[in-house]
């Protein structure tokens, strides 16, 4: 179920000291972090909702979601607004580095041992400028969220 990334662009960003990447086409905008209004009875990785030019946008602590510990509230954080299955979500990350165009032959699957809890969300590993970049699967992110709330 690996998406073919050849010819597509990925945006690389930093979460909990690791480099991650996302399909650029899913990204709507990047903005500075603003304090979120917390929602009751939601999983802890859902930080709350913010006002995105009139739309109510949920923001997710990506680090916590991937099992790497809560990122906490930090004014220097950045929110990447992505569109998954017609819905907008904000992902809280530390910083955004660059945009790359990978060769699909470079995409390597993530070994189970190395992945841990985050493994379900990762599509593969990529080398970018001698850094190891984990490629995130948006489809998995979207699927998990509604189920969490039904629990």
């Amino acid at each position, binding site marked *: 179920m690996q998406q073919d990334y050849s010819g597509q662009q990925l945006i690389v960003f930093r979460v909990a000291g690791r480099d991650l990447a996302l399909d650029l086409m899913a990204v709507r905008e990047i903005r500075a972090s603003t*304090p*979120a*209004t*917390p*929602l*009751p*009875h*939601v999983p802890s990785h859902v930080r*709350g*909702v*913010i*006002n995105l*030019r*009139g*739309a*109510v*946008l*949920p923001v997710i602590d990506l680090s916590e979601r991937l099992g790497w510990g809560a990122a906490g509230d930090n004014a220097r954080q950045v929110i990447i607004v992505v569109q998954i299955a017609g*819905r*907008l*979500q904000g992902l809280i990350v530390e910083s955004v580095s660059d945009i790359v165009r990978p060769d699909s032959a470079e995409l390597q699957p993530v070994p189970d041992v190395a992945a841990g809890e985050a493994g379900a969300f990762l599509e593969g590993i990529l080398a970018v400028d001698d850094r190891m970049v984990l490629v995130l699967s948006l489809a998995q992110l979207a699927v998990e*969220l*509604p189920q969490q*709330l039904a629990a």
Partner: protein
Amino acid sequence: MSLDLVRATFFEECDECLAAAEEALAGLRDGAGDTSDLVNRVFRAVHSIKGGAGAFGYDALVHFAHRFETALDRLRDGRAEASDAAMALMQRSRDVLDDHVRAARTGDVAPVAPEIESALDQMADGVVPTDTQAPGPGPGQEAAAGRTVRVVPSPAALQNGGEPLYLLRELVRMGCGPVRLDTSELPPLADLDPAGAYLSWDLCMPAGLDESAVREVFEFSGDEIAVRFVAPPPPPSAPHPEPVTMPQPAVEHSAGAKPQPQPQPQLLPDAPPEPAHGAEIVPLRRGPEPAAAPAGAATAQSQRVVRVDLNRVDRVVNLVGELVINQAMLAQRLDVTSDDVAEAMVSLDQLTRELQDAVMAMRAQPIRTVFERVPRLVRELETETGKRVSLEVSGEATEVDKTVVERIGEPITHIIRNAVDHGLEPPDDRIKAGKPATGIIRLCAEHRGGRILITVSDDGRGLDRARILAKAVERGIVSPDANLSDEEIEQLIFAPGFSTASAVSNISGRGVGMDVVRQSVQALGGRVLVSSRPGHGTSISLILPLTLAIMDGMVVAVGQSTYVIPVNAIFEIIKPAPHQLCPVSSGGMMLDVRRDRDDAHPGQRSNERASRAGQRYVPIVQVAGALGVPDGIRTPEEGVLVIVESQRVGRAALLVDEVRDQRQIVIKSLETNFASVAGVAGATIMGDGSVGLILDVEALIASVTAASAAPVPLRREAIG
């Protein structure tokens, strides 16, 4: 342009054609307008559908449309006669065409209607259709004798210097009689408006008098005088008609019952009309069809319309909403000391409000699209139940929000089904009760007091309270010894799982009806009211707000967070004194509403208040605890209690830190980008740009009135 887009446009046009055909057929049925013009309209509508369908290869639809079109062609060039039976066939054919279109749209199997198809073929071949099964408007011309024309002048008829009396005399001169006066709408003298019009007349039409001739008499009064034709009831052993001596017809008073403030149609509990002797009637002219077609005028008054993608409209609506918020923020932060600036701000405020109204109006649609489906529904119900129904619709042009149009159709359908199935009696029973065999259902919509009022009323048997109570006891909804008032019994029909149908019929009676209706209406922010007179009929009213996206909200603080409570759910706000608080063993607390702050003991005054308030003890909900706000106040004495109530789950007192402000807020849905969250009904953007959560009042009340130790999972009710 993709094929899907073209196809979607085709189906939209099909809907318009079907609606135009329905309207033209209604005109033909009522005899309003030029027959050949109306038939032509139906023909053109069917022809359009056939053409488009051919392009997409919807063969079944094309074939049926072709048959229909051929029969219409015969009608319009006079080779086939436009008899009542023919009209009924056209009506049913239009319904079958509707089914074909729907099947083509959804990809379902096309409907089969062999008897209609063969009837159409016969008509095309010149065979006169005989109406064997349609419960339509009277079978054939022969029974024209004994038909009744009902003349109902509105107040406007008397205001322009018109005198309906002359028109009535003309009808008499043309041979109508006897005349019966209906005074049932007449109010007591104290309430009588001298400029009002409360009387209506029923005149029997002689054989051979054409409906169009009667309408011609009222040509110049237009809408001011309502003229309706009522088919005769099936002739029972009628008393031998006495010879009529022209031109002094007998005028009989029908003693109207006590006048009702509610719109209860009361028809005459009199003997069936007696046909006059043909021999003594002055020979009538069968005049030419009136040239002006009132039905045509309505549609010819063509408004210039533009088709706009709904997403674009919604985007503008959102942007304007944002503008309003930003303008509010600006007003808040600007230190307004100079007069010039203050003036400019007032101007800006006015402009944004006007802009908002204008944009909201874009989302408004006439409720006509919902009402248009009703005539067909009624026809189907007539066939299924064997009852006869005359449908009166008014206020189709009343504008309501798009969301209301989308969601009010189901409730209205169900209410009308109930009215025909349970409310109206079979024709025989009606005649025994002295009513005309054809029952009346009135559907009307109007703006009233800043709200929309939709009423469905019938002149049937009314709510059978004894049976309702018996069923409620049987279902365990109330206890056998409960002492309920008449209104409370009537309200039982809204209880979940309630149905008085002894056999679960296909139409209604599954016991989910009125409960779901009420929920749907409440989800739109409205209410349902029912009123009934046994033997005379029932009236159900739906009261809806004008716009759904904006609401009056009370902004409250809980800890560091702000929340919004819908103002229409708030009963009272109080700062409680210790003696008003009563602890309960499970750790919860109740508020004693009967005690005032200042009275340590209940006194006369507070008893009065409480008798209006209902329950004496109201459970307290710690909002901070329910929503997990860490720093919110949890002891009632330190906070403020907002007493809220819901029709369904009762009353509770919400404990908040403080009440800040009341303002109009734009409702945003959480579900758009997220999911529903327990305890939260929606969100809004506050003046400082942050997101405020709208509390789900019902869920919070239910969490404490459900009376269990374990926390009840909070349900959500979405807004907009």
